[in-house]
């Protein structure tokens, strides 16, 4: 197998965006009849590599060979014609068209110049039959579950392209049954000799379906290894990068652990999103949430803040149960939430720093009681000074600020509401080193002033540095809670890598 000509081979590919390197000299080899998992955390370069292979991006350097021939796909459609098909997480089909129309869009069989619907339906049934799928092909795709839509998308991709199939997080919104059904299809395609690139954040699934694994980190190739015999801990440390330096930890006042919890979650969960979990958060405490991307970290925060509604369990604040039905409700309880993706969920780019800061407070007061201009200015100036937000002017549109300063404005927005409980999702992502340290100092400072914090971060060293306790999530389950001396990057990684779906702790 190894000495056969590879189906797809990527040699020394690099790609930079506006001078920032996203992919550096990466090699990747896919054999025919192989499921090859591509792993890495956010910003590792997975999606950039996939987009280069599927024609969505042009590479800056390097070459891509398909069956030994160099290819230069102009766009996604061009790559499809060459034999490389892609199925995305949010199925990119048209739910308003029928199953058959989706399979044959752009290449409908014709008779007398018009679409031969009967022939199209017949052929669609024949194609889906090979996947063991017996559905009404004349019904709109919207009538079917996401899993079936995935299979239809795969069937289309295979029928058009037929050599390489890229599955980009295909299982992210499927339940266990559906995943099994999808994997049966993937195994069948592997047996037919297709090369399949599988991207997933679920390590159990990777171990179940993949033959080999390529790990990327910070745009560089870490290694390509066969799955058989690969140690999970080794895999996780390849993905996260081993911190060699000793963990720096904050000294924690032992008395806080004994006080009454401010927020307590009991069996809080939502089907298909997060399994029920228990958690107490006390004043003056930072609870860290660790886990790989897609492990349910953000989903947990969204349940607590009422963005998603839990279908089981309770939240109590100061001992009294609260029905957390909306973010408004959460805000009225003194909660605040800085989301992960500040570009889409946080900042309003064209508005000024001042306007972005007063947002949440104004929303809390209601539009009937507007903050006066001088109050707004005083507030903005106070936080610009307090958080050291680097802006030439409080009226400057926030989009012109650096990532770190935008993050501080978002923090200021929530601090202005004077919260008791602050949730931070990836507060240090995509910001420079200096701002990084300031945000961490701010977290510790807020905590010492008695605020309760829940912080989600991929930076394990950082999480270990400021957390009083850390909970570890894996595959949408809480698998471990680390306290005191247990808090270390080592323990976190072991918990993430721990094997088995029954949820035993590390």
């Amino acid at each position, binding site marked *: 197998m190894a000495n056969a000509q590879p189906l797809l081979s990527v040699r020394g590919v690099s790609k930079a965006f506006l001078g920032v390197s996203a992919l550096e000299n990466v090699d990747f080899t896919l054999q025919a009849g192989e499921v090859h998992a591509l792993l890495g955390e956010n910003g590792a370069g997975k999606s950039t590599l996939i987009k280069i292979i599927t024609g969505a991006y042009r590479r800056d350097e390097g070459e891509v060979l398909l069956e030994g021939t160099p290819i230069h796909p102009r766009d996604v459609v061009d790559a499809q014609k060459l034999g490389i098909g892609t199925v995305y997480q949010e199925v990119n089909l048209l739910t308003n068209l029928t199953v058959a129309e989706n399979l044959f869009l752009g290449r409908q069989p014709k008779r007398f110049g018009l679409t031969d619907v009967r022939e199209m339906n017949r052929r669609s049934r024949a194609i889906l039959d090979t996947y*063991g799928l017996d559905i009404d092909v004349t019904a709109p795709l919207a009538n*079917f579950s996401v899993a079936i839509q995935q299979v239809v998308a795969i069937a289309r991709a295979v029928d058009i392209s037929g050599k390489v199939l890229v599955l980009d997080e295909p299982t992210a919104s499927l339940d266990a*049954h559906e995943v099994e059904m999808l994997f049966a299809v993937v195994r069948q395609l592997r047996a037919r000799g297709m090369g399949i690139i599988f991207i997933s954040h679920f390590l159990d699934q990777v171990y179940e379906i993949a033959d080999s694994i390529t790990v990327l980190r910070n745009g560089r190739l870490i290694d390509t290894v066969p799955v058989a015999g690969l140690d999970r801990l080794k895999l996780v440390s390849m993905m996260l990068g081993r911190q060699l330096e000793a963990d720096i930890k904050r000294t924690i006042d032992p008395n806080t652990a004994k006080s009454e919890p401010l927020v307590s979650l009991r069996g809080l969960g939502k089907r298909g999103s997060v399994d029920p979990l228990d958690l107490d958060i006390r004043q003056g405490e930072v609870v860290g949430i660790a886990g790989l991307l897609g492990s349910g970290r953000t989903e947990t925060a969204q349940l607590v803040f009422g963005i998603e509604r839990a279908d089981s369990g309770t939240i109590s604040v100061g001992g009294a149960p609260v029905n957390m039905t909306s973010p408004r409700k959460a805000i009225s309880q003194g909660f605040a939430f800085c989301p992960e993706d500040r570009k889409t969920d946080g900042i309003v780019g064209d508005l000024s720093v001042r306007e972005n800061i007063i947002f949440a407070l104004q929303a809390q007061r209601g539009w009937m009681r507007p903050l006066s201009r001088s109050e707004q200015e005083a507030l903005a100036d106070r936080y610009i000074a307090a958080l050291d937000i680097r802006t030439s002017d409080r009226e400057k549109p926030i989009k012109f600020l650096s990532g770190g300063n935008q993050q501080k404005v978002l923090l200021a927005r929530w601090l202005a509401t004077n919260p008791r409980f602050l949730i931070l999702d990836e507060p240090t992502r995509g910001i420079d080193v200096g701002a990084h340290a300031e945000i961490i100092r701010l977290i510790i400072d807020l905590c010492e002033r008695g605020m309760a914090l829940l912080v989600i971060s991929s930076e394990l060293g950082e999480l270990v540095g400021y957390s009083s306790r850390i909970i570890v999530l894996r595959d949408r389950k809480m698998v471990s809670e680390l306290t005191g001396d247990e808090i270390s990057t080592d323990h976190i990684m072991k918990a993430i890598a721990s094997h088995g779906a029954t949820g035993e702790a590390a």
Partner: protein
Amino acid sequence: MKNSKYLPLLATFVVFVLGYVICISVFPNMLSTRVAGNLLTDNAFLGITAVGMTFVILSGGIDLSVGSVIAFTGVFLSVILRDTSIHPLAAFAIVLVLTTAFGAAMGGVIFFLDMPPFIVTLAGMFLARGISYLLTTESVPITHPFYSTLQEIYIRMPGGGRLTLIAMIMLAVFALGIILAQRTRFGTYVYALGGNLTSAQLMGVPVAKTTIGIYALSGFLAGLSGIVFSLYTSAGYSLAAVGVELDAIAAVVIGGTLLTGGYGFVAGTFLGICIQGLIQTYIVFDGTLSSWWTKIVIGLLLFGFIALQRGLMWMSERSARNMRHASAAAQASGA
């Protein structure tokens, strides 16, 4: 249960039948081919442009320029037939080329400049109306003998009703429109654009060509509608057909097409036109009602249909969610 997408169409059909039954029970004379023939003739121009509007709305767009384009066509024809000796057929060809190009240009602006169709066609609306004024501000009669010839072509239906040439043209446009929407790649692409633009692009739909094609089609049909309107009124007037674009949109929506695009049928638009015609006919028969009642009833129907569509969407979303686990389990055990 098979296809909930036919439900709005069915609802429109039921409304039409109910309306007709009410009309007949009040005025038994309305059950005649004469009434039917007049209804088709009176609404021919609206029907033709509504077919174009159906394609535009199915693709998720809107075309506000059609009323002005109809007026422009009438004015252009009346002026050119008055001032030159050109044959009306040649004039028809010229004006159709002009309106099609006008539509294509708007489609091009919408796609290449990534502008909302609402704004682009609003500009088109002012532009076409303005050019009509530029040609003439008066109502210019068309006296060419060929016009009289065309106006006298009709098929006598049993019962004495007349199916005029312009009614036939409208029926033909609907028939061709249905085939174009349901049985050609272009038609599927139109639905694809209305369904999800990003997905359509990723699946290889030629978005530029299709967008331009849709607005060119709407421009062509607005031109054809203008020709029919000039045959109907024997004149060109720059103030004519004001608000026709809104009547056309109303017919499309009452016909069960979703304003956000992706769902609907050309045949539904025909029913929408018939319902509007029916209300007008009722008012004519009654004789005491103000013609504004047409607008009031149309307004109420529009509200009703928008509510119906919302309800259907909500129901199908819910059933899809409920189906999810059941069907997945069934598939897993079947696979």
